[in-house]
């Protein structure tokens, strides 16, 4: 189980990367900042950065538009 934004629970899968998690959440926004257990993940690492089981992930969307 992975906890996203201190609210949403997502099933964990072996080998899960940040990109897998974003896809699962439908998070396609461009201005996002991702942390996995408080570690900041660079955009170019989304496809390789592993999300461990039980991780607390934040996906911060910075508002634009509006």
């Amino acid at each position, binding site marked *: 189980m992975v906890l996203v*934004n*201190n*609210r*949403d629970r997502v099933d964990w899968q072996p080998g899960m990367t940040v990109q897998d998690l974003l896809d699962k959440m*439908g*998070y*396609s*926004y*461009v*201005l996002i*900042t991702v942390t996995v257990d408080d570690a*900041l993940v660079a955009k*170019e*690492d989304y*496809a*390789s950065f592993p999300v461990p089981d039980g991780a607390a992930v*934040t*996906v*911060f*969307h*910075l*508002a*634009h*538009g*509006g």
Partner: protein
Amino acid sequence: MATADKKITITIDGKTATVVRDSYLLQAAQGLGIDIPTLCHHRDLTPTGNCRLCLCEVEVRGKKRLVTACNYPVREEIRVETRSPRVLQHRKILSEMYLGRWPNVPVIKEVAAKCGVTSSRFASELTDPNPKACILCGHCVRACAEFVQEEVLDFAGRGIKRHLTMPYGRVDKRCIGCTSCAYVCPTGAIEVVDGLNGPVDAKLIRDYGMRINAEMATLDKFQCAMRDVGTANIVQVMQAYDLLPTHNHKFGAHPDEIHIDTSQIKKRVTQGMPDGCWKGCSMACAKVVDNFVLKTGPYQGQHVAVDGPEYETTACAANMGCFDLEFVFEFNFYCDTYGIDTISAGTCISFVMEAFENGVIDKSHTGGKELRFGAKREVLELLHEMARGEGFGVDVGQGIRWLKEKWVREYGADPAFLNDIGMEVKGLEFSEYVCKESLAQQVGYSMAVKGPQHDEAWLIFMDMVNNQIPSFEDKANALYYFPLWRTWFGLMGLCKLPWNDVVPADNKKYPPPVAAKVPGHVEDFFKFFEGMTGIPLDEEKMLQQSARVHNLQRLMCYLLGGGTRQDDMPPYRAVGPVTAEEYESRVERYDKQLRESVGVDPAGKSTEQKVAILRKYRLDQYNKAVDAAYDRRGWDRNGVPTAERLKELGIDLPQVMALLRSRQ
């Protein structure tokens, strides 16, 4: 070794670096603390590789060659030497040549010294003793094209005749005097003559304004693509996050969105033009669709240029169920031509459509028009009627609030249903965001002084997606800061888009509550104020400036008979699902909320029962959030600024206080 194919590991002077594919060799070297001399390179401009001082020796698959580091993209494993004898020899000769031509220009002397050269054998009739001579680096040419997209400057002549010029060697009228060229010039060859508008400190404004210009040139294409497609970049975002209003704000997404999607709009708009909204703006988000042939109305058959479309206008089409770009352009053109606001018209007609589909009105009221969702031809007919002041158009032109009253009074319509689905507050139609899942946005919309326009508050992502402001107190704090910050732009006559439609690359370093404010850009705007007026500004002073005006505005509403709690009540459609159809469309989400937040088991309950339970819960939450926001703003529970708050803000003028008392 290639890691996850986005990164490549390379060796520079024996040191190892892992770099992002396609990044330039110069950055990789700088990242390792290796200093390579440069002359024509500029951090914020596209590298051109014309001075050749940054030469390095690169070995690819056993073959060595010289490349210019500033514009050499790393795409495979390489070994690099930045100081091989061959490299040093080339740099030495080059810098000697530069020094021979421009012996007194400080940047030339500096770079030559770095290459071990302090005198030159190449003095000639070309030698220019001017310490501020133009060294043909091209920074200005690129800044003109990339910072402000004007392309007024370029080089002419070849070889030794090469020189900087505007077209035909004359001062070009298209030069907007933005000073970007002078700002990036390393020698001072372009001088700025200040004086326009009499700022106290023009340099301060320029120093901070150029930061935004540079971000637009380098980051926009990876962020919001404002230059490419303008505010319509968020059509696809809103659809993806279930926030794009469709069918009178019933739903937040629709399968037909694909026809009006950002990518479709992008294909149709004229690209890369300097802005038509405010000449000189480096964001340049205003777009034009050229050569559009009108199909209806007084200009039928004519080829016209259509402004936009902006996000809101496009989303209006979704709200009316008209998923067709041709329709969007025609609707946009005629709204603009007639002087009709696309948002008010779009939201109002969406309401008319839902009323029509529910039998509140029929063809006998609409002048024979079958005004169902998706009725594109009928919408345009209605728009022409509104402009001509004829038929049903006269009624629709009065807006939702007026229509509700007339239909209840004259057609015996159910006021409860109309109040639930009529998307207006304070008589103004909602703009185009579905706010059902964001309590903070519901309150922000409804408490906005002029009505539900998102320019006071746009908190959907902070609240609904990021879960960043979970408590009522957090929401109230956001509903305090952001409306005042956004009001401040209005007070200054400044556009808000450069604040958060491009974001500094280092914004990620801040924790979310701070990052949301985009501190780098807040600083830029404070410096603009200081540069113009000479008065330093900080957050506290900014909030004070805004709060004085914001509270006076609220007070004026109050004195005009509005501005109280009942005027801050939204239609229930903005808060939750009005109909069984809406509930069932997102049944998983709503059932989950019943179970987890309300503490009610949805099993065995009819949809109508579930709608009613959820409604009670959500309205209760809404009222609690309003209480918290009023408290934070220093307003009483009826939404009226308190005497203490007015005093604190220094706007407790005797006339104001007397008027306040007269309504109490």
